[in-house]
């Protein structure tokens, strides 16, 4: 029974990874790619690690997989913040289809203060 739940969770995780990777290829600019990739791939990998817990039960490997989920969660979100901020400061423009940009003014103000 536990094995079947584990394989179902594993399949769901790989399906979400697939969506994330399709988004990485299809979407038009860096920011949108990061959106799709971070969210889908993080939840997919969390699901894969959770399936490990169902497969082995609360033994050594299951507890380690829970720790890996917590670490992966914080690591992925913080890396996404850092990447999107770095990309903006580097000067990569938002895509053609974007509508508003409130960050532009704040960013210019910051640059003047640094000088």
């Amino acid at each position, binding site marked *: 029974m536990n*094995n079947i739940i*584990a*394989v179902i969770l*594993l*399949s769901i*995780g*790989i399906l979400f*990874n*697939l969506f*994330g*990777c*399709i988004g*990485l*290829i299809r979407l038009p600019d*860096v920011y949108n*790619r*990061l959106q799709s*990739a*971070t969210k889908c*791939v*993080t939840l*997919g*990998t969390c699901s*894969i*690690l959770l*399936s*490990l817990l169902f*497969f*082995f039960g609360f033994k*050594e*490997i299951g507890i*380690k*997989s829970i*720790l*890996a989920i917590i*670490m*992966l969660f914080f*690591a*992925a979100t*913080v*890396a*996404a913040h*850092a*990447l999107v*901020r*770095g*990309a903006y*400061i*580097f000067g*990569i423009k938002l895509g053609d289809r974007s509508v508003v940009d409130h960050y532009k003014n704040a960013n210019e103000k910051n640059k003047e203060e640094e000088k």
Partner: protein
Amino acid sequence: MNQVLNVLLYIQIILCFFCLYRIIKGPTIADRMVGIDIFGILVVGICAIIAMITERSFIIDIGIAWIILSFIGTLTLAKYLGGRKLNE
């Protein structure tokens, strides 16, 4: 059971090629870094599936170490991209 797990492992490995496409093709440097970041997370998934197939516990340790290394690598590259000093 093992056959199913093997097929899922192959699918996960094929997903890595999607990231490689983005790393090679990416028009800007930030696209390539997004590809590298996602590649690191996918490798953790591969480690988890291999741990399931072989039933050895040390492979999940490799996964945990990979999470931390990939995190630090991405953070360093992002700071470099933002034009900051690395000791800030």
